[in-house]
């Protein structure tokens, strides 16, 4: 155990440096730079609000905040897992020439997306103020659902990155899966439009629970109970554990397959 901690400490600067690198490369040569992380969700929200609350007349009170709470969390999840999935494959040239602990790559991608998520929270705050949404003290608990989503994405990202090394088909399959996942998550529609018999399918979706948690805190001003917390916690921790085990079992073979 001590060996792992020491090794992690040695490579912690690398994690920070890689995140910084990704940020620099992402915004290099754009005039607004990092402001795009805030602007992007805002503009998306404008599009979605005009389509869904004027064109389709979906009846959701305070649609902008409803949409943003869902979409910020979901785009973090989809961005993070997709980037983590290809991270080991793309770092092939590097891991064939220097020893680096392999988990650095998926973990870095997930953390980088998490940094982006934190930027987009600024957009959410902005919209909450603009629409004069009433918030209660419960909103201060907002890091909890984000951490659940982080753990879950980390676990799934680790599993996907291993799969991608051995079966490249997953790269193509996952984007389709993500699209389906987006539509099965109540991001821009209310839960109530899903027929009663499919509701159970909805409860199997971890993202549904995380987003609901987030909305309870921000939009409804309530704090989810113990059972909801236990559920979210077990989903995220179990996924993370499986991810770590799968990754550890396979990491020595990566260099032969990438």
């Amino acid at each position, binding site marked *: 155990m001590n060996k792992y901690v020491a090794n992690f400490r040695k490579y912690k*600067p690398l994690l920070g*440096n890689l995140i910084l690198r990704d940020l620099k*490369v992402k915004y290099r040569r754009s005039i607004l730079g990092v402001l795009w992380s805030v602007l992007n969700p805002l503009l998306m929200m404008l599009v979605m609000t005009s389509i869904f609350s004027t064109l389709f007349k979906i009846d959701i009170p305070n649609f902008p905040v409803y949409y943003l709470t869902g979409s910020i969390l979901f785009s973090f999840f989809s961005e993070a897992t997709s980037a983590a999935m290809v991270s080991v494959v793309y770092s092939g040239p590097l891991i064939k*020439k*220097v*020893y680096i602990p392999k988990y650095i790559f998926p973990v870095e991608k997930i953390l980088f997306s998490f940094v982006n998520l934190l930027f987009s929270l600024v957009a959410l705050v902005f919209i909450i103020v603009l629409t004069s949404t009433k918030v209660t003290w419960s909103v201060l608990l907002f890091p909890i659902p984000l951490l659940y989503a982080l753990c879950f994405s980390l676990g799934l990202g680790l599993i996907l990155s291993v799969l991608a090394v051995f079966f490249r088909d997953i790269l193509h399959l996952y984007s389709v899966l993500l699209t389906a996942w987006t539509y099965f998550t109540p991001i821009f529609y209310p839960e109530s439009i899903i027929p009663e018999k499919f509701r159970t399918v909805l409860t199997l979706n971890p993202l549904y629970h995380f987003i609901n948690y987030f909305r309870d805190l921000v939009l409804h001003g309530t704090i989810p109970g113990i059972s909801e917390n236990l559920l979210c916690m077990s989903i995220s921790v179990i996924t993370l554990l499986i991810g770590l085990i799968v990754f550890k079992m396979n990491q020595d073979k990566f260099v032969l*397959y990438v």
Partner: protein
Amino acid sequence: MSEYAIDAKNIYMRFNLSKEKVDNMKEFFIKLVKRQLMFDEFIALYDVSLSVKKGEVLGIVGLNGSGKSTFLKIVSGIYKPSLGTVQVNGSIAPLIELGTGFDMDLTARENIFLNGAILGHSTKEIREKFDEIVKFSELHEFLDVPLKNFSSGMVARLGFAMATITKPDILIVDEILSVGDFLFQEKCERRISEMMNNGTTVIIVSHSIDQIERLCNRVLWLEKGKTRMLGETEEVCKAYKTTTSKF
């Protein structure tokens, strides 16, 4: 601490050549049943044992495909051997390919920090050595230029400076002294001999038998993944030269 810097015992390395070209379904199932699918093996190293004492300079010779680079990669921890154990005492600076891990979109300054982290150095360490790295690589004026605008010689210079700037316990050199102009080559060789004098353990792979004779205490001769000979420089080099001159 043991007296050995590197202690490798009975190393086997098996590669999967992944000749996965299967033309049709029939062939696929036949190969699946015969368990040949993607399991075309190639043995790169076959029962190689080697101990290197601290401060020793070891050369590895052999023709192409004899497993030299594979052996170095196992010692550096990049590959896990299929069988056998490797014990390494001390920090390793692998000079396997110069400029590994540089990001071409970042500037030289940013790359120094990123690459330092890849090699496992702390930010503080790199900040302390920053001026030295810049001085050695002679890139003062180009510090804030993205690496994609560098010439390959400039990249190699920065790579060499990065890899050797902290004093490693073990230095691994794989055929890299053929980059840059002759002045820089001399500078690199001076730096390596300087490290040797300071007690760094060095492993050199080279096709230049003169270089091996000049620098090494002991030589390992690999042939098709097996140890052909291991011993004093003079003896091994002589035998190697007489065999290879037949071709």
